[in-house]
C-alpha cells in the first residue's frame, strides 16, 4: 500500500535524514510547504499490516489473562472474599493494561465501559473504589457486567483485523498517556496499582514495537531503532522505582513525549500516516 505522508510530520527529529533537515532549516517561513517538501521516501506498509495482524495473538493472551482473573474476581466477590477479590482485580488489570495499545484505538466503545473514568457504577474503577477504598465486596452487578463486557471484547478482538496504522496510533497515544500527571495517585489510586499499570503499558508498547515495527525500522533507519530501544530502556528504568512517590514525574513526562515522538518517526519510516492522538 502506497501512502502519501501526512502534512503534520515532525521534521526535526534527531533521526530525520540530513537532507530533509537541511531543507527544513532553509525554509522556516512556511510550515506546510516544508512538510510537503519533506515528503519523499514512502515505503510499502503492507508487510507491517501482516505483522500487526500477527500481534493479535499477543493481545488475545493478555485479554484471556484479564478475563480469567475478572471471572475469578466475580467469584470472590460472590463469596464475600475481599482479599481474594482484590488480588483478582490486580491480576485482571495486568492483562487489561497490557492490552492498552489496542483498547482505545480499536474498541473505543467497549473501552468506555470497561475502563470508564470517572464512573461509580461500572467498569474496573467503580469496582476498584469499592474493593480497595470502601473495603466493600458489594460489587457483584458491576463485576458481572465487566465479565460480559470483556467476553464481548474478546469476541470482537477475535473478529477484528489489527492494522499497523492502528497499532502505531495506539502505541503513540499510550506513550503520551504514560506522561500524564501521577502526583495524586495516578489512574488507579484506590488500589495503589498505578505504577504497575504504567509498567504494563510500557511492556505493551515494547511488545507492539518488537513484533510489528522493529524489523522494518532496523532495516530503514538503524539509528532510530537504536534510539527507540534506548529510550524504552530508560523508561523501563525510570518506572522501576519502588513507589509512585519515588517516581520522577518530570522525567516521566519528558520520556513519554520522547517515546511518542520516536514512534511518530517510526511510523514515518514505515510509510504510515502520522498517528492520530485524539481519544
Amino acid at each position, binding site marked *: 500500500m502506497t501512502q502519501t505522508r501526512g502534512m503534520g510530520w515532525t521534521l526535526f527529529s534527531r533521526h530525520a535524514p540530513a537532507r530533509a533537515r537541511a531543507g527544513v532549516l532553509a525554509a522556516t517561513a512556511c510550515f506546510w510547504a516544508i512538510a510537503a517538501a519533506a515528503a519523499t521516501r514512502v515505503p510499502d506498509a503492507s508487510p507491517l499490516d501482516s505483522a500487526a495482524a500477527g500481534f493479535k495473538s499477543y493481545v488475545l493472551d493478555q485479554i484471556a489473562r484479564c478475563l480469567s482473573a475478572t471471572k475469578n474476581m466475580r467469584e470472590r466477590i460472590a463469596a464475600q472474599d475481599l482479599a481474594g477479590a482484590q488480588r483478582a482485580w490486580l491480576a485482571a488489570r495486568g492483562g487489561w493494561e497490557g492490552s492498552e495499545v489496542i483498547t482505545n484505538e480499536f474498541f473505543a466503545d467497549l473501552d468506555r465501559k470497561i475502563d470508564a*473514568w470517572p*464512573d*461509580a457504577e461500572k467498569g474496573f474503577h467503580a469496582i476498584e473504589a469499592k474493593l480497595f477504598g*470502601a*473495603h466493600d465486596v458489594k460489587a457483584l452487578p458491576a463485576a458481572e457486567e465487566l465479565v460480559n463486557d470483556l467476553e464481548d471484547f474478546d469476541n470482537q478482538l477475535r473478529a477484528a483485523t489489527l492494522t499497523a496504522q492502528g497499532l502505531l496510533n495506539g502505541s503513540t497515544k499510550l506513550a503520551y498517556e504514560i506522561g500524564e500527571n501521577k*502526583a495524586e495517585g495516578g489512574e488507579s*489510586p484506590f488500589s495503589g496499582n498505578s505504577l504497575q499499570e504504567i509498567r504494563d503499558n510500557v511492556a505493551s508498547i515494547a511488545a507492539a514495537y518488537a513484533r510489528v515495527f522493529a524489523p522494518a525500522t532496523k532495516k530503514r533507519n538503524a539509528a532510530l531503532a537504536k534510539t527507540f530501544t534506548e529510550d524504552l530502556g530508560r523508561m523501563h528504568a525510570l518506572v522501576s522505582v519502588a513507589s509512585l512517590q519515588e517516581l520522577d514525574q*518530570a522525567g516521566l513526562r519528558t520520556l513519554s513525549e520522547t517515546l511518542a515522538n520516536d514512534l511518530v518517526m517510526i511510523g514515518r519510516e514505515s510509510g504510515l500516516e502520522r498517528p492520530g492522538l*485524539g*481519544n
Partner: protein
Amino acid sequence: MSLRLRRFGAKRKRFAAAFAALLGAAALTGTAGAEFGGNAGLLPAGSELGDEAFDRPLEIFRSESSGGRKSYLVKLGDVAFSSPLTLGGAARQAGISCNTCHVNATANPRLYIPGLSTRPGTFDTTGHLFNPKTDNGVLDPLTIPSLRGAHLLAPYGHDGRTLSLPDFVHNVIVNEFAGPEPSQEVLDAIVAYIEDVDFVPNRRLGPGGKLTGPLADAEKRGEALFYKPFAHDPALSCAGCHVPTGAFVDHRQHDVGSGGLFKTPTLLDANFNAPYFHDGRYTSYAQVVNHFDRVFYLGLSARDRDDLVAYLRAIGDAEQALVPDNIEARIMEISDFISVLDTALPEHNATVAALTLDTVDREVRELTEQFPERKNSAVTGGTQERARARGALKDLVLSLREIAGAAQNGRFDEAAAALVRSRAILAAARPLLEAGEPWSLFNRQIHDAHFAAVRRLYRSAVDPALAPRQRYDAD
C-alpha cells in the same frame, strides 16, 4: 486590560487529593484491615488545591492598563511563577508552583493541606513537608495573601519582616519550598511579574481613596466612622493605619490584639481575600469589625458596625474579580509563554528555554484535560470534536518536545525553526478547540456533570468504618 486565567495541574487523574478532602480523606489512606493500600499521592491525603473551580481570578497587568505591553521579563516571570521547577522538594514533585497558592497572583481560599493548614486558605510555610529544614515544630499557618498591587504594599510577609520583594521571593523559593538557587534573571523576572499585577479596578473609589458616586447612607456613615478618632485614644483611627491615600496601608506593623505585630493589610480587593487576619481566623467583615470594637473599646452600636461593614464592602469591591475560564484565555497565556522563546532561543539561553518549554508543556497538557476523553462516562456528545481537540493539543506538546530537545543539545537554529512549526500547530488547533468547547469543561453543564461523577466515584470509595468527620462538602 488583559483577561488572564490560569489553572494548574492536569485534571483527569488529579482528583485524588481534592475529592478525598471532600470525603474526609479516607479513600486513599484507609488500609487498616485490608491487604492492599492506595496511592496516597505526593501530598497528604485530604489535600485540596481548588483546581476544580470554574471561575478564575481576573489578572490585570499595569503595563497593559497603561497602553503598553508586558515586557519579556514580566512574561518570563509569569512562566517561572507557574513552574514547579522554580520550587524544589515535595512541591516540585507534586507539581506545585507559586501559582498553585497564588492563583493568577491572588490568593487561593480553597487550598487546604492537612498538617499545614488549619482552615481553607491558610498554609504553614515552616512545616515539615516542603522543606524539613524550615520545620519549626509549630503548626502556625498564615493566610495566603493576594499579590495584586504588591508594588505598593512593602514590607513583605504578614509580619512585614522583609523590606525587599526580591529578598522575600528568594526566601520563599529557596527556604520555604526548598527550591534551587534562582538565577538573577529568573528572580528579577518573578519580581517584575508580581509588580506588574495590579488591583482589579473599583470605580467607586475616587482620588484619595474616597468613595464616589451614589452612596448608600450606611456607606456614608461607615466612611465617617472610618476616619473618626478612636474614643479611648484620639491618635488612632481606622484610616490612621489603613491610609486611604496610600492603598489603605501605612507600611507598618501593629499589635491589634491578634497575637503579635503584623503589618497593616490593604483593604483594596479585600472582598475577595477572605479569610481575614494573618491566621485567617475571621471569615467576614462583621467579625473583623467586632474584633476591633472589642480590642480598642470603640463602643460601636449595632448600626455603627453595620455601617463599617457596608463601607468596607464598598472599598474592597471591584467591577469584576473573577472571570470564567475559556479557550481564548488559555491560548493567550500559552502564546505569551511561548513568546519568551523569541528572546531565549536567539540568546542561546538554554536554561530559560527549558523552563519555558516545561511550563508550556504542562499548560498544554492541562488544557487537553479540559476536553474529556471518550472513556469519560460523565460526558456524552461531541465525541469527535473532543477527540480532535485532544489530538491537536497532543500534537502541540510533541512539537514542543522537539524544540526542547534541540535547545538542550545546543541546536538553537533548529529549535527556532521548530518553534515556527509549533506556532503553526497552535494556530491550526484553535478552531478545533473552539469546535470542542461545548463539550469541554469550559461549559458549566459539562464541568458540573464531570465533577459530580468524580465525587460519586470518590464517595463510593469511602470506608464508613475509617471515614473521619467530614470537614466540608462542596455540595
